[in-house]
């Protein structure tokens, strides 16, 4: 087990560097520069800018410079936001996204798990059908539709929460709900399916036959197995959560990492894009590792050599 973990950990940095290389290549392939604007620049000024950022050197030199810096964790300064280093920009905006993302996922877990478990237990009941229908709705309505509807009702109709911007506890209620919706739906369905499968399985029958009470059966045995699909969903869920936060941050004008990232790509701000991509890739890889480890604990049939 330990060897497995170690091997995966060692791979993370090289993989991140590969991701950075690919991203760098993609950005360089894209036309457009970060300093072009509608009022075009005189040639001399453009030359000045290119010299300042080392853009007049051959591409392989630029690549090597970038790579050696990145390997040491130095992404340099943002091209658009002069005088600010990429690391500090990421550090500054991460808390916004992290707060909303984590709270949203916890909310989604709480809602989804409870709805899924109860629906599985009360299969074919009113609650089951109702919950699954609502879940279906959550999967079919895009978040950029759901969010503004919430804003319309609660922020502009009833004035109880602000319609946008970060500031105070009341400002994260709507963004969190908007973000959590689709994941709660997914988790509810997954949990229900997982629980149903587990409840039918042999080892649960064994547990019941042994005479254990329903509660113990549920919590100690069934739950573990039933959650496996949810656990395996965490990996892709995290990746999708990142996409979701981009939309939510745009709807509610929250200065999170998603918004910064989109801006950076649209601005062709290369160091910032590379920094965020590297950071997010490492995050995703670490997360996937944690998920894979937890598999081992949840399902004794799975073991890693």
């Amino acid at each position, binding site marked *: 087990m330990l060897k497995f973990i170690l091997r995966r950990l060692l791979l993370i940095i090289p993989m991140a560097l590969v991701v950075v290389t690919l991203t760098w290549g993609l950005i360089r392939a*894209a*036309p*457009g*520069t*970060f*300093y*072009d*604007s*509608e*009022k*075009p*620049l*005189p*040639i*001399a*000024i453009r*030359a*000045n*800018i290119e*010299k*300042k950022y080392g853009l007049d050197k051959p591409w392989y030199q630029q690549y090597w410079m970038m790579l050696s810096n990145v390997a040491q964790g130095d992404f340099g300064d943002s091209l*658009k*936001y*002069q*005088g*600010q280093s990429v690391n500090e*920009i990421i550090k*500054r*905006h991460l808390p916004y996204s992290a707060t909303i993302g984590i709270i949203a996922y916890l909310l989604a877990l709480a809602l989804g798990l409870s709805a899924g478990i109860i629906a599985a237990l009360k299969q074919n009941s*009113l609650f089951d*059908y*109702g919950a*699954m*229908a609502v879940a*279906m*709705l959550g999967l079919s309505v895009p978040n950029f539709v759901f969010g*503004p*509807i919430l*804003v*319309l*009702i609660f*922020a*502009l*109709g009833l*004035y109880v929460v*602000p*319609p*946008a*911007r*970060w500031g105070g506890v009341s400002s994260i209620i709507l963004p969190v709900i908007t973000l959590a919706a689709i994941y709660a739906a997914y988790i509810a369905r997954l949990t229900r399916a997982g629980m149903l499968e587990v409840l039918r399985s042999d080892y649960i029958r064994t547990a019941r036959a042994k005479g254990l009470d329903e509660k113990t059966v549920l919590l100690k045995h069934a739950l573990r197995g039933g959650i496996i699909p949810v656990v395996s969903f965490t990996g892709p869920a995290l990746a999708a959560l990142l996409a979701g936060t981009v939309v939510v941050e*745009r*709807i*509610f*004008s929250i*200065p999170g990492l998603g*918004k*910064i990232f989109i*801006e950076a790509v*649209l*601005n062709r701000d290369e160091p910032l894009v590379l920094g965020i991509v590297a950071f997010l890739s490492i995050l995703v890889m670490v997360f996937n590792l944690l998920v894979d480890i937890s598999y081992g604990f949840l399902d004794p049939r799975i073991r890693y050599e």
Partner: protein
Amino acid sequence: MAGLDRDRIIATLLVLSLSGIVAGCAASASGKYFGLTTPPSENVLRYISGAEPESLDPALPNGQPEARILMALYDGLIEYHPATMESIPGIAESWEVGEGGTEYIFRLRKNAKFSNGEPITAKDFVYTFRRGFKPELASRNASLGYYIKYSEAYNSGHAFVKGTDGKFLLKKDFVDSIVNEAESKALPLAGDSEFHKFLDEPERLTIPTVETDKVKLLDSDPKLKAAVEGKELVPVKAEDIGVEAVDDYTFRIKLYQPAPYFVGLLGHQFFRVVPSSVIEKFGDRWSRPENIVTSGAFKVLAHRPYDELIVVKDPNNWDAANVKLDRIEFYPLDEQTTMLNLYKAGRVDGIYNHTVPGPWFDQIREYKDEYLLHPENATEFYVINVKKAPMDKQKVREAMAIAIDRDAWVKLKKIYKPLVDIIPFGIFPKYEEAREKVYSEELKKQGSSLDEWKARKFNAEKGRKLLTEAGFPVQQSGSGWICPTFPVDDVSILYNTTESNKATAEFIQAQWKQNLGVTIPLKSMEQRTLLPMVNKVEYQGFTRRGWVGDYMDPFTFLYLYYSPQNASATGWWDPKFDRMIDEANSTVDEQLRFEKLARAELYLNQQQVIVPLGVPGTSWMKKPYVKGLYPNPGTLHAWKFVYIERDPAKWDKDVDNILVDKDPVVENQLKVIMASQEEFIKTHQAVKTAAAE
């Protein structure tokens, strides 16, 4: 089971949509004001300024959002009048122009200080200007100041050419220009100096030092090459540019040719004064919140990027006694719907221009006490790549320009007014007078008339005729038109991904289809991809352009088409036009100059290198309790005039008249400030008349 589900689903959907509609109706129920309208409890203004500012260093950013913020943080020689944007005294109490029109003297007040208490002197302005042109700084605004002698040479890394006899080659020997070197006499009250003598000399020739550019230039001009041969190249230094601190409180600027509108340029953030000691100490990190030192009415309290920038009143500012707000909170947002939602929920007090979405116009217009729609110093038009067929034919261009129903377009865009010229109307009244006169004369000479000119707003019949004459016959087909020979594959309408541009592009495409029978394909591109393509004139056909004036003079619109390296993105250049402009700009009499500019504009217009569409209105909102904030043509506010009015009886009513109604508080403040320049002019006049007698 399925039935239950389906019912449940339908019910959910119904409830959702119903509540949406109900909430929507509730939300848009019209009271007198748009949403919650209560002044903030503190003496603070919450303002949405636009996209997140790139930097708080005034020399670097060239965008509107930054301009608004930087005006609060930095003071310049002059300031913009809050309603008209004329030049009013800033750190300079008074100023004057020399006889030749190339020398300016600014007399600074003695009590101006930076936010850290250090005094501001003429030396600081010299530093600011020299720094702005530093090539390593790579400022995008440097070209605004190129009128200053040798500033362009310094910024481009050029060098003087010095002969073995110690004499420098002079520009007038190699470059044709009808602008005569005006030797201005040293003004009274400003001392002479070695440096001043150097500036007064005829302009020296400069050539590039970068090998490739140098070789290219010399190869194209054998006379120049011969003259440069064997001579020493002396790089142009910062100390060579035409700015001088005559003494601590007298600042002199020397231009290489007259620019009658030059003082108006100096309100731009590029020319506002920055603290040399702080910059030398911290380098490019000097503008971070923990290091920054400013010179304006407000100073930075906190900066959370993409969230808010909070500035507070600077007690060290020379005019601090008259600054009424304690604090301004700038919110960087650029999504229109979000902005208006925040405004409606009463969480912001004012928004920048062009923020009311077109479709909302009819509803928002009802709020007469808050919605500001006044003419703007800007135009919207389509540029044409005149190098690629079939757009290289003037008749084709004219045909397509005239076949757009601008009145209908205006109804679509809501906040625009139709335009058939280059320079917008409603901004420069004196210029428009001159233009009327000149156009009537010239058009009559051509056998046309001003009315016919104005009818270029829309004439489908004439468009079809022109297109047919150009070699692409338009035929009737059913109830519409077709033009089968027109090469639609060689033309397209290129636009970036914003909705308003998309709407315009779709509209124009439909217009050409309906009126000329040609279906021009649309092409949309992300802004960053589109810009280089447009700037290098590689696109096909048409692309949308908007131009905001950099200063309050009509030339800022004609400037786009001037010089072989012009920034018009059309690939067009005409030496005749350049000559007309040069002639106009070296004319000292204002009205005469306007007439010459009008002639140039007519000439340019008839070449039809662009398709003028309209002049936008400012289209923004502010709460009625916010006073001193005016819909001036540039939507650039001098924040020290802004205050919160707590007595509802004095709130703004019917803001269509806001530029005409005089606010006593603001007027008083203006009177005090403008007094110094007015005094100076009066005494100066008196001296001149006395001298003449």
